[in-house]
């Protein structure tokens, strides 16, 4: 294989994507008795190697004596072409073995628009796409990650879904697999045993009848499966496995730095945000543990930047102490500390000032919407004053360029709210004109992505804005964001619509997806590959409109295609949040002591905790 591979590598762009052998990568002896797993990331190496989840699972599996884990990423178009030409099967990076030789293939589903790559990778590996056609000789195909909270569009292709945080449950999966293999069990028995584990969903054990409105009319499940699958999650983040010897890529990847995860979950409760719902409750890591992990990471990787990652890093209770300790310890070694997700307020700018001794040119904030009315609808607890204070502080401190993230197509949005985006961006610019020292370099970049309603959020019932409407809104904004110092970026609305179809679709999306792949769709998230016409063709083939699921309205009393997946946040709470959204009423952050009643603490008998101990909240009954 190596020899064949070397010939190919001379002819493709960025061959370093495919060579493996990176520092801290693990290539174990290939012998009987070990469970052989391959972590499959359905996007480019540069994207996959920026994903902390991969590094965590890789460590957990390779720490076991009875298992090994290697990696594979989606080959870029040129590489796929060469591989197909030469009959080279999809291979792992560590031992360069065919992926089909492994016992278990584990995909991570980070983004709906990588689903065609999942199918393409199975095909390149020479593995049947459909679970029902894969017998004892085929690897078990499992999938996890945030998108598995609505697993249905991929149901026919995946044997086992891991719902929720995977670093503990993966051990139960391997234990069960080892035990069943020892007994000589077949695939069906293995699946039945796996289905008993909390957080495991075996889609072939469930059959659905859908109504005309594509909601669930009837669900039948095998006796070995439970009618509801609860997510798995980590109770104790301080003692959870964390990779202090992560793989250091040879070639530049998107996040080419130490990723020190400081907490799980987020208490803000933005109503559009799936991560804010499915990763509850908030769990902050202990400060001393973080400092120890940072020390090990610095010496084991040689990276020159420590990024404090989480959903909202300035919310970490002891963030000031953490950043100042890291800066004190590592500044003299020329190791930077970075805060990637900043809240839009002056406190966050203060933090950024402290860590970024070397001023980078730009700072990013996410007001998400242009008017207070709209920010109340989405429960974004930031007001205009917060944002303007933040940018004023940033301009005064020497930053010359501000990036602002907005969403368009949000529920209840009017042209007045879009107008507000233009007005707010201009206000930010004028703060710069009065505060910044280098006025000539001032730049305010506004990016507008199209809102996609996601399962397990208060907006899960909402239809997505239509393609025509999204285009009109973009054109409207283009007019409003003209002028010196203003830059406007937007996303492909066609892509957002398909993301909406795959996000809120049921099993009827599976054949459409397969058809789109057959027509040649892959790397849909990449401009140079995305082909909307092919997707349309796939929908039309099944007599469906390309926005069949995206623009669908669901009702509160409908059984939604993903209702058998329980993320811990109750449907009642989501519905109440939806109603409050329509009335423009905010919901308090549970960090402030008032429990909003989302239900997570009751169902899992847990309390949110910070680096200073348990949060003092009186847990309310779920609404």
């Amino acid at each position: 294989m190596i020899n064949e591979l070397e010939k190919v590598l001379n002819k493709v762009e960025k061959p370093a994507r495919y060579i493996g052998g990176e520092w801290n990568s693990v290539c174990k002896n290939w012998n009987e008795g070990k469970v052989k797993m391959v972590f499959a990331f359905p996007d480019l190496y540069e994207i996959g190697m920026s994903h902390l989840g991969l590094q965590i699972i890789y460590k957990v599996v390779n720490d076991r004596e009875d298992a090994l884990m290697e990696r594979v990423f989606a080959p870029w178009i040129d590489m796929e072409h060469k591989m197909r030409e030469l009959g080279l099967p999809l291979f792992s990076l560590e031992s360069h073995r065919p992926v089909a030789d492994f016992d278990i293939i584990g995909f991570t589903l980070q983004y709906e628009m990588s689903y065609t790559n999942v199918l393409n990778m199975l095909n390149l590996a020479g593995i049947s796409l459909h679970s029902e056609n894969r017998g004892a000789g085929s690897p078990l195909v499992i999938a996890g990650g945030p998108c598995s909270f609505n697993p249905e569009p991929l149901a026919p292709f995946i044997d086992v879904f891991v719902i929720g945080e995977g670093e503990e449950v993966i051990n139960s999966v391997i234990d069960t697999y080892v035990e069943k293999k020892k007994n000589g069990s077949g695939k069906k028995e293995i699946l039945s045993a796996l289905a008993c584990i909390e957080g495991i969903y075996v889609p072939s054990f469930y059959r659905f009848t859908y109504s005309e409105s594509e909601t669930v009319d009837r669900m039948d499940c095998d006796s070995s499966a439970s009618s509801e699958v609860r997510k798995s999650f980590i109770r104790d983040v301080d003692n959870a496995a964390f990779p202090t010897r992560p793989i250091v890529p040879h070639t530049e990847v998107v996040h080419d730095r130490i990723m020190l995860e400081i907490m799980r979950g987020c208490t803000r409760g933005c109503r559009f945000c799936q991560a804010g719902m499915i990763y509850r409750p908030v769990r902050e890591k202990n400060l001393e543990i973080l400092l120890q992990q940072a020390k090990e990471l610095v010496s084991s990787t040689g990276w020159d930047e420590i990024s404090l990652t989480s959903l909202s890093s300035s919310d970490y209770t002891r963030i000031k102490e953490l950043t100042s300790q890291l800066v004190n310890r590592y500044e003299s070694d020329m190791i930077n500390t970075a805060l990637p997700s900043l809240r839009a307020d002056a406190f966050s700018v203060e933090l950024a000032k402290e860590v970024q001794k070397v001023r980078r040119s730009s700072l990013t904030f996410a007001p998400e919407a242009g008017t207070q009315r709209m920010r109340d609808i989405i429960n974004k607890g930031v007001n205009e004053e917060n944002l303007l204070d933040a940018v004023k502080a940033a301009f005064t401190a020497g930053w010359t360029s501000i990036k602002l993230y907005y969403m368009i197509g949000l529920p209840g949005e009017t042209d007045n709210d879009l107008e507000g985006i233009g007005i707010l961006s201009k206000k930010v610019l004028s703060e710069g004109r009065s505060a910044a020292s280098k006025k000539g370099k001032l730049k305010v970049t506004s990016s507008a992505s199209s809102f996609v309603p996601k399962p397990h959020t208060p907006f899960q019932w909402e239809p997505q804005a239509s393609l025509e409407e999204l285009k009109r809104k973009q054109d409207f904004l283009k007019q409003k964001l003209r002028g010196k110092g203003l830059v406007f970026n937007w996303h492909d609305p066609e892509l957002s619509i398909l993301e909406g179809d795959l996000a809120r679709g049921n099993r009827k999306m599976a054949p459409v997806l397969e058809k789109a792949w057959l027509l040649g769709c892959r790397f849909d998230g990449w401009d140079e590959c995305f082909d909307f016409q092919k997707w349309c063709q796939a929908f039309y083939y099944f007599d469906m409109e390309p926005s069949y699921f995206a623009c669908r309205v669901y009702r509160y009393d409908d059984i939604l295609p993903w209702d058998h997946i329980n993320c811990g946040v109750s449907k009642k709470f989501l519905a109440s949040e939806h109603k409050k959204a329509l009335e423009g009423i905010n919901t308090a952050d549970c960090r402030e002591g008032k429990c909003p009643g989302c239900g997570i603490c009751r169902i899992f008998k847990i309390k949110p905790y910070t680096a200073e101990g348990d949060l003092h909240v009186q847990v309310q009954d779920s609404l």
Partner: protein
Amino acid sequence: MYRYRILYKKTDLLRFISHLDLLNTVQRAARRAGLQMVFSEGFNPHPKITFAAPLPVGVEGYKEYLEVELNEQNIPGELVSKLNNNAPRGLEFLKAKEVDKKAGPLMAEVGYADYCVQTEISPGLDSSQLNCFLQNFKDRDEILIQRKTKKGTREKNIRPGVITLEGNVSKQSIIIDMQLRTGSQENIRPDEVINILAKDYLPVGVKNLKIMRTAVYDNNKKTLLT
């Protein structure tokens, strides 16, 4: 401040990483090894590591040179083993020597390099025929190629930069050894020579080449680290 010149090799699959990737890889290995590197001044300080001559992606290098500036004095042998303990597979440090910190840039010393090109066997071609073809190439005074530059394509005579050119046909492959002008004044790439050979002189394929740089010399054809 102490300046070290280090001999290393970049082989196997690691030959597929770019020059920029190699720079990062060496920096990270040095950090893991706990070396106290000297950093440049300015807004974006970076460690002072310089290379003799960049290797094209896909080309193995067996006698490559770099220099690093350190704040602490190191015993050369220990420096080499510290780096080797922290280097990924395919990158190996062979020898180090402290050099005068006031010496000129390493890159400016480079003058020549030896390359060995392996290609697939072509039926019916033996060593004497091969060398006959190579002689035809050498007999010319001018061999023009088109080079892409930032300002468009430019014509370049590569013949004066090709110092030696010898071939050998073995059972498994054709091997062509060449010495080429290398460095900032004059630089000929081995693939430029091979492409001309394949086009005008030789019945060999250029699809599955393996190229090795076996040595890098100064302007007097002397080794850069004694």
